[in-house]
């Protein structure tokens, strides 16, 4: 789920940046530091949409670095248990398949794939129903439900299922190609 929230961060700025463009540099550094990161509480920071406030800087003794408290608004993305997501399959193997929804990686175990879908190995490994009408392979788009999440320092990993009503392939690259 996406959220637009206000976050705070203490930015440390090297003294070499002090000058007329200090604010720009601070913001550029903020974007560089923050965008793409992940925290357990807020999920992935997708983009910074604005800076609300830059507080007074405090010079650190010894290093000359200056710490600015920065308040900024950002779009964050955090997956939740039970959330339905649409994701792109990135890899298929006999244990299941991996899919990605933006920065989030989701694994769908073969236990959580409907029983009528069987793994077919080969050049393009895939899961196919016995009649061959539905196929999950790399680049397929699937709708899945997240049943578990694990938050690391740098990424969020989810386990999903497509063994439920209305879940499964929503577009098949094989069919169009």
């Amino acid at each position, binding site marked *: 789920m996406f959220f637009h929230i206000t976050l705070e961060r203490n930015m440390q700025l*090297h003294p*070499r940046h*002090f000058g007329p*463009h200090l604010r720009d540099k601070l913001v550029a550094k903020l974007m560089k530091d923050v965008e793409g990161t992940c925290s357990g509480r807020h999920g992935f920071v997708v983009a910074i949409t604005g800076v609300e406030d830059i507080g007074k800087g405090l010079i650190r003794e010894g*290093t000359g670095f200056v710490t600015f408290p920065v308040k900024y608004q950002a779009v964050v993305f955090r997956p939740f248990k039970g959330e339905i997501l649409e994701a792109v399959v990135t890899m298929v193997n006999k244990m299941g398949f991996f899919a990605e929804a933006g920065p989030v990686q989701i694994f769908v175990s073969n236990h959580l794939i409907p029983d009528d879908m069987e793994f077919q190995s080969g050049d393009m490994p895939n899961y196919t129903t016995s009649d061959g009408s539905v196929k999950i392979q790399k680049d397929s788009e699937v709708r899945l439900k997240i049943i578990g999440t694990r938050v690391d320092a740098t990424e969020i990993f989810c386990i999903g*299922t497509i063994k439920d009503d209305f879940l499964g392939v929503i577009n098949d690259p094989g069919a169009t190609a």
Partner: protein
Amino acid sequence: MARGRRRRDDDFIDDDEEDEGLMDDEEEDEEEYDGGKGGRKRRRSEFIDDVAVEDDEEEEDDDDDEEDDGGRRGKKPKRRSGSEFFELEAVVDSDEEEEEEEGEDDFINDAGADLPDDDGNRRLPHRPILMQEDQEDVEEMERRVKERYSKSNQIDYAEDATDVEQQALLPSVKDPKLWMVKCAACKGLRNIFSSAKVMIVPIKEMTDVLSVESKAVDLSRDTWVRMKIGIYKGDLAKVVDVDNVRQRVTVKLIPRVDLQTLANKLEGRDIGKKKTFVPPPRFFNNDEAREMHIRVDRRRDKDTGEYFEMVDGLMFKDGFLYKTVSVKSISSQNIQPTFDELEKFRKPGEDADGDVASLSTLFANRKKGHFMKGDAVIVVRGDLKNLMGWVEKVEEDTVHIRPKMTGLPKTLAFNEKELCKYFKPGDHVKVVSGVQEGVTGMVVKVEGHVLIILSDTTKEHLRVFADHVVESSEITTGVTRVGEYELHDLVLLDNMTFGVIIRVESEAFQVLKGVPDRPEVVLVKLREIKCKIERRSNAKDRSNNIVSIKDVVRVVEGPCRGKQGPVEHIHRGFLFIHDRHHLEHAGYICAKAQSCVVVGGSQGNNDRKGVDSSKSRFGTFRSSPNILQSPRGLPPRGPPADFGGGYRGGGRGHDSLVGKTIKIKSGPFKGYRGRVKEVKGPLVRIELDSQMKIVSVNRKDIADTTGVATPFRDTRNGMGSDPPMHPSRTPLHPYQTPMRDPGATPIHDGMRTPMHDRAWAPMSPARDSWEDANPATWGTSPQYQLGTPGRTYEAPTPGSGWASTPGGNYSDSATPRESSYGSAPSPYLPSTPTAQPMTPSSASYLPGTPGGQPMTPGNVGLDVMSPTIGGESEGNWYMPDILVNAIRAGGDSHIGVVKDVLMDGSCKVALGTFGNGETLTFPPSDLEVVRPKKSDKIKIMNGTLRGVTGKLIGIDGSDGIVKLDDTYEVKILDMEILAKLSTK
């Protein structure tokens, strides 16, 4: 072998029958024994006689004897129990003997023959005591006994045996003593008293002696057990039938039968006594057996009605071996079958057996405190089976749970064994016991009491028992560290091979070796690892961008083409990339740096694009690319990374030296010539021409045999292992770009020229420090090393007034430099070593030193100016009155003063410093602007102030600080656009 085994089994059975006979005997009276075997019995019964001579009835019921009450209770039961004790021992003995050789039975017979004497001996010491006491209460006792047996024993027992009464039963000092006799002494009972040590049993322990530990483990069907002896030792077996009376169990095993041997034996061929070979467990196959001409009989078991295949006395069914063994030869405690074993037991297509985690096994090994408050549990037995709930309270074996279902009492009490932990798919759990202990993962599926979890590290499925896991948010990989090495560390295996640890096993590591083309994984022991490689280094990617750790790169060639991820380690030009989509090798890929390109990361042109896009998207934060360049230009961990990569960072130096023929000029290999194979930090590996070997030599110890022919820069890089210079490279890039672009023609050429003519004033500070350096001084000059840091800190501080104190900042710097600048336009003194480090350029390019970085004034000046430079056409560069360096046809250059600029861009130049020589016309490509030095009069050649004259009052890196003649304004301008004015 099998035959031998069978025979023994038969023997066992025989023994059993005898044994059974004995047991029957025991229950009857003494007159029933037969010869030898009866020996034991007789002894015992006689003994009992002694104790309770008058009490025949009691004799009949050994079990109830504790029940006596009254004053004599204490003694009597003890005595009697004493006899029981002996009997017990005897029984045990007989059992053990069964397991052993038949000879033992003989021994018993022999012993039995001698018994009467022994008994006679034994009786003596007891009798007096017994007689005394016993005879006193004979009548009372008789009465009591009668009383007792008139009632139902069992009920009485239950009612009477209160704690207090039980206490009263305990032995006291007054009671007869128990003696401990070594079992060996029992062998020939006649010697029982002459044997050395007879110890008294402490009163406290007397009860323990008599308490019969119920060894009767509740072996029930379908329990998993392990074999204790024989070729099946350690094998998992499943109990199919239990004969409690005969203490035998029938178990189901995966047979270890060597059909070939069996066939040989059946055909009467010679069987070598090769006991060493234990056939691997394998299911028995009828057809195979028939092929080997082994007779397979099919028989029906008379009890169960099931059919078995009989081969050489072995019973098979469905490929399993059914074997009847003594309870003693199996262990039933703490059996933790692994899934592998269980999987094997589950024959294909046999799902009925599917409850792999047979409950009995599951519960056998529960630790204490298995359940904790808050655990989700499910009832697995009884009426409320499948009821879910949460643990509220745990009392010993009883667990109180709060049921999930409404309409039930608030809490229900269950026996621990009726409950099982319950997990839902998606739960994050940690395995706390069993083979997979320590692993964490997410539950993917729940199959009864078995969970399928997806391991966090390996992304593989694991099957574990629900009982073995706890919910946990912790993420571990099991063991991640052995010794000083941790998972994902870069380690050196031997001098040439290195790799990343991708898996830690017990005492061994899996290492992905640093080889291109194909992933190579080796299993190494702890001691085989030489050391951890912690040095951070850089490498250059395909487009010569510097790759540092954590940069995201994409592999563009080789087997891993298309993979992308952050660089985790760099070593010797190899990158270890972690691609999270890559499942093998813990996601690690090894690739040559040259086969990769940096994606957007910290360097290169992509960077600028990234900034631009962010700028356009985020318009409010207007920032010029160049400004952003500086923070971005440094990789996240810029300074340390750059420094560490000093040697390597100069990829050019590295490359240029490799393959060169050099001469070693000092050290133990002085005088040798050889080819450079590799440059490793400060060391150079050289293949000696004269000897077939490769030696490592310090860089400083080598000299180029090619000497002068070697390009200048290369020599410098090769020679001067000068860390401070290299780091400057990174930030240097942005500056160079604008300089180079316009300078394509005149300036570029100009840069080269002075190389040969050192007498020239430096073109730009940055350049001159390189070019004027005498190669010899680079390597050795200590001043250089010293000078740099010192200068660095004295580098101009912003706002300290460049303009107001011209040269003030520099005044405190070493004099040679001042003088050299002061003496302009006289030839610059290149040989003064101290002068080199003084140049602001080297100081200002050190990214890591605070203050050393050019401060805003310098930067701003450049930023403002550079676009203009790029945009200007080069035809207008030269202007009248500026000093130039003109190269004449012969290749020698002369100073001259531009007199006029012609339409085609060529200039009329009057040779001589003061323009008083002959006047010639030169094309712009043959001209080079003379760079001004401090205090020189200058003319601005480009930008809005083109044509204006002024005085250069200071130089900051590539920027000059200029005081304009007309307005007395102080401007900061790029040195590139400043030309020295003729002082005519």
